């Protein structure tokens, strides 16, 4: 089987068996995604590239802690999220609160809603253009859901939030976007 056709988890398994050169496959697959993800945190391309490089170094160093029975994607995004958040904190570009009231209480929000997939493509397009106008805590779940196409469960793993909070953030993010569009006179 062609190495590039194998799943992330199978590639990791083979790397752990000693085929360390296969790590380049994971880099090829995830570098564009992480660079795009990083744009939601930092402005300068060079800074984003530096952080993404550090992410891959951390991934390689800690690869033996990855459980190959689980999905690789949320694991690498979690490392990337922490790296970008730490960089933001150091650079004080954006206040990243330590304590988040959204995670205090349970929220009765419905999980993944497949019926609304038809509007996902449209949302993807407008999101890309207007994301920077949203506060960070709503921006990230929207990016992960619409642009990186991850599930509520995966987003919960990456952001270390209860699934109900992920749902709340997505709903509030969508509402805020709608307000922005209404102000701009754009039809969603």
């Amino acid at each position: 089987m062609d190495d590039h056709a194998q799943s992330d988890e199978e590639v990791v398994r083979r790397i752990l068996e000693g085929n360390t050169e296969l790590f380049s496959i994971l880099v090829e697959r995830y570098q564009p995604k992480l660079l795009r993800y990083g744009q939601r945190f930092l402005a300068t391309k060079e800074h984003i590239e530096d952080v993404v490089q550090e992410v891959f170094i951390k991934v390689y160093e800690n690869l033996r802690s990855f459980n190959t029975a689980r999905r690789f994607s949320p694991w690498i995004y979690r490392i990337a999220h922490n790296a970008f958040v730490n960089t933001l904190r150091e650079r004080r570009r954006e206040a990243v609160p330590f304590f988040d009231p959204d995670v205090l209480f349970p929220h009765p929000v419905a999980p993944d809603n497949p019926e609304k997939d038809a509007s996902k493509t449209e949302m993807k397009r407008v999101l890309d253009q207007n994301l920077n106008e949203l506060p960070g805590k709503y921006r990230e779940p929207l990016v992960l859901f619409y642009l990186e196409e991850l599930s509520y469960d995966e987003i919960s793993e990456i952001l270390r939030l209860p699934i109900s909070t992920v749902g709340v953030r997505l709903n509030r993010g969508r509402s805020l976007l709608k307000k922005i569009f209404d102000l701009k006179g754009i039809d969603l």
Partner: protein
Amino acid sequence: MNPTEGQRETEKVMKALRERHVAMRPRWYFVLRTVLLVLLFVVIAAYLLFHTSLVYHRIQRGGGGLLPSFGWQGIQKIVFLFPWILAILGMLLIVLFALLMSRKTRAFRLPILTTVLTVLVLITGLGVVIAMTPLQDAVHRFVEKNHLTAVDQLYRSASDEQGQVLIGTLSRVQPGRFTLTTREGMSVEVIVAESTKCLEHYVPKNDDTVLVIGKRQGNVFAAEGVEKIEGLFHEDIMEEVREHQLGLEEE
């Protein structure tokens, strides 16, 4: 990113890995990290259980279970003598522990309040169960025997110091007064007035074990209420008084 640019970027990362001699951490590193984290949780949980059982033990020793029999007066004593600092410190530590669990384990999937309440209920419940075992009494005796004054302060019932509640055995019972010997071996002269509330029409007799509420006035204690203690609590107190008397005789 076009394919050539993509290949260039991939090569940059692989080059950085080679040049910086980045090596994968061995499996035992992660196993050890998990073991240490689990150990940390166990140690913190064990301390919190001990702390909670100590709070309950203090309340029990101070007659907390019996004071409500005196009605509003008894409840006021409970509020005054409750080990507030110890209890509040315990609650804060439990909340911090729950927050740590939320950050370091899969408990992040639950709202923090759920985690905090669950940990609070579990630790408090188990703490009460532990307080009912001989553990705290054994620790208290060890502390007293070895004159560990600082720790002994944690065990001394506030009632002894505040002079509002006394628990002990009776001797030299006379009309209107008796001598009460506390568990710490202290003898107190208690004055019983007409207004003193003796629960269930109790009449003081020698060798009875009682709880007395009132106020210290100089060298005497003016009783506002007296209740006879029976059952296991009575036996525990008798044993403690006897141990102190034996201790004094040996000296």
